[in-house]
C-alpha cells in the first residue's frame, strides 16, 4: 500500500501510454529501484535491459502489480496507464491484470489441455455466453500467438506435451485470451532454443499492432531486433533511454557503451 497519495496529473491524454514518475521500490529495507522516470508509448515494443539484479524484473512486475503479495515489498511514486494511477485506491489489482497481461521467463502452462489453458482467463472472467464464443476466443488467441496451425488438431492434449517454444507461445495465447491492452514479457525467450526464440521475436513485432509490449531482456541483439525504444537500468537506476537504432549505434552514456560491449558484469 502506498502511504501518501500523489495528486493525479490529468495531462494530455495519450501523451505517453504508461508513465512512471519518481518510482522507488523496496523489498523491506532494501531499495531495488531508485527515482525511476519512464514513459512507454502505445503500440510499441519497449525493452528494459540491464545486467542481472539491476531491477528489470521488479520494474516490469510493478506494471501489473504482481508484487503486491510479496511480503515486505512496497513502492513510492506514481505509475499511470492512460492517466490512471494504477496504485490508486480506486484500482482493483485483479481488474488491472485484465488490462495488463504477463508472460513469464520460463514457460508456465497449466498441466491441463491446450484448450483449457487458453480458456482459463475467459472462463474466470465469464467473457462468453456460449461454448461457441469460447471456441472462437481460443482459436483467435492461438492464431494471434502463431500457434494455431501447430495445435489445431490436438487441442485436447496436455499442454505439457508441447515443446518449450510452443509452451511459451501457448502462454502468450493464454494472456491474449483475456484481451489485454498491454503485454508484459519477462525475458520470454531466455529459456528457449534459437529457433523458438526467433519465432517468439517475430511474434512480438506482430503483436505491437494490437498491443503495447513491454519486454525485459538481457539479450542485446534481441532488443536491437525487436525494440522501438530501450531503457538501460543499472543498479536500480535508469542510466539511459533512447529510440532503438540510436541507442545501440550511438549510446550517449559511457556506462551504456560498456554494457553493450559486454564489459559490464552483473551487480
Amino acid at each position: 500500500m502506498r502511504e501518501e497519495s500523489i495528486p493525479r496529473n490529468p495531462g494530455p491524454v495519450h501523451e505517453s501510454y504508461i508513465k512512471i514518475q519518481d518510482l522507488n521500490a523496496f523489498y523491506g529495507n532494501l531499495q531495488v529501484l531508485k527515482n525511476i522516470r519512464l514513459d512507454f508509448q502505445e503500440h510499441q515494443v519497449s525493452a528494459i535491459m540491464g545486467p542481472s539484479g539491476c531491477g528489470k524484473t521488479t520494474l516490469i512486475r510493478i506494471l501489473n502489480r504482481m508484487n503486491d503479495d510479496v511480503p515486505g515489498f512496497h513502492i513510492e511514486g506514481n505509475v499511470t496507464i492512460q492517466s490512471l494511477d494504477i496504485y490508486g485506491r480506486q484500482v482493483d489489482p485483479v481488474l488491472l491484470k485484465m488490462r495488463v497481461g504477463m508472460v513469464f521467463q520460463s514457460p508456465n502452462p497449466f498441466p491441463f489441455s491446450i484448450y483449457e489453458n487458453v480458456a482459463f482467463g475467459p472462463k474466470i472472467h465469464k467473457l462468453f455466453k456460449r461454448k461457441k464464443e469460447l471456441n472462437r476466443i481460443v482459436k483467435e488467441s492461438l492464431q494471434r500467438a502463431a500457434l494455431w496451425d501447430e495445435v489445431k488438431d490436438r487441442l485436447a492434449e496436455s499442454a505439457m506435451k508441447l515443446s518449450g517454444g510452443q509452451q511459451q507461445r501457448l502462454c502468450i495465447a493464454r494472456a491474449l485470451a483475456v484481451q489485454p491492452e498491454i503485454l508484459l514479457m519477462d525475458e520470454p525467450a531466455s529459456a528457449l532454443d534459437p529457433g523458438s526464440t526467433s519465432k517468439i521475436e517475430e511474434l512480438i513485432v506482430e503483436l505491437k499492432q494490437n498491443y503495447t509490449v513491454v519486454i525485459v531482456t538481457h539479450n542485446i541483439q534481441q532488443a536491437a531486433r525487436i525494440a522501438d525504444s530501450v531503457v538501460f537500468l543499472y543498479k536500480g537506476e535508469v542510466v539511459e533511454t533512447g529510440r532503438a537504432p540510436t541507442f545501440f549505434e550511438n549510446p550517449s552514456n559511457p556506462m551504456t557503451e560498456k554494457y553493450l560491449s559486454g564489459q559490464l558484469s552483473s551487480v
Partner: protein
Amino acid sequence: MQIESEKDGEGPKGSDIARKLPWQDPRVLFRYKLRRLADKMVVAVTILAVVVVLYPLLDILFMFFYRGALAISIPRLTGLTLQFGLANAIVGTLLLVSLSTIIAVPLGVLGGIYLAEFSAQDQMSKTFAGTVRFLSDVLSGMPSILLGYVGFLILVIDFGWGLSPLAGGLILSILMLPYVIKTTELSIRKVPLKLREAATALGATKTQMVNRMTFPLALPGILTGIILSMSISIGETAPLLFTAGFSNYYPCGLTNCQVGFLTYIIYTFAKIPTTDSLSLAYLSAFLLISFSLVLNMTARIGLRRLSKI
C-alpha cells in the same frame, strides 16, 4: 588400480617426488581405502537394519494370510458373531469408517486449504494458522485411548448417545483429521509458484485459483491422504472400546446402539483357545490386513499415476 610407488630412500629433492600428484601418494590412497571400507560398512549396516525390520513384518503378514486364508468359509463370512461369523463386525467396521470419513474429509480438506492458501494474509491469521498446525500435530501424536475416553465422557455420557456408531465414528474422525489436514496442506503447497503466478497474472482471484487450478492439481495427493487415514482408522481398537461398545448383531441405528467391529473380534477371540475362536480371530485379521493393503495400494499406485505435478 596398481600405481607404481616411489622408493622412499630416493633423494627427496628428486624432481619426480617434487611433482608427485595426490593420486600417486600412498598415504592418500590408504586413506581412500579406509573411506571406501567405511562406505561399505554403512551400506551393510543399513541393509541389516532393513532386514531386521522387514523379516518380522513379512513373517506376520505371511502368518495372517496363511492362517486367515485357511479360516475362510461362507458361514464365517455371512454369520453373526453368535454363530461364529463376522458379518455384523464387517458391516460395523465399514459403517464406522464411512461415518468417520464423512465427518473428517470435509473438515480436514477445507482446513488444509485454509492453511495452505489463505493463512498468510496478515499477522493474526499467520499466528492462528501456526497454532492450528501445532495443535493438529499434537493431536496426531495423542494416544488414541485418551480420545476414546474423552469420547466416552462427552459423547456417550453427556450427549447421551450411548455406545454407538456415531460416537465411535466421531472419535475416529478426530483421529483422521490431522492426517487429512496435513496431506491436504502439503499437496496444495506442492503446486509450483510459477503456476500460481500464471493464474494471478490472468486476473484470477484467490478463490478462483484454488477452485480451478490448485485444488484439482492437488486432488490426487489429497485423496492419497484420505485413503491412508482411512486405513489407520480401520485398524483402531482402543477408542472404539470406549465409544462403540460391541454387539453380536447388525448395527441398529446411529445412537444408543452398540456396534460390532473386526478389531474387537481379534481382541476377544484370540484369547480363547478353541479352534473356532482362533479361526475367527485369524479371519478377522486377514480381512483387516487385506482392507489396509487394498487401500494403501490404491493410494500409492492408482493415484500417483493421476498426479500431474
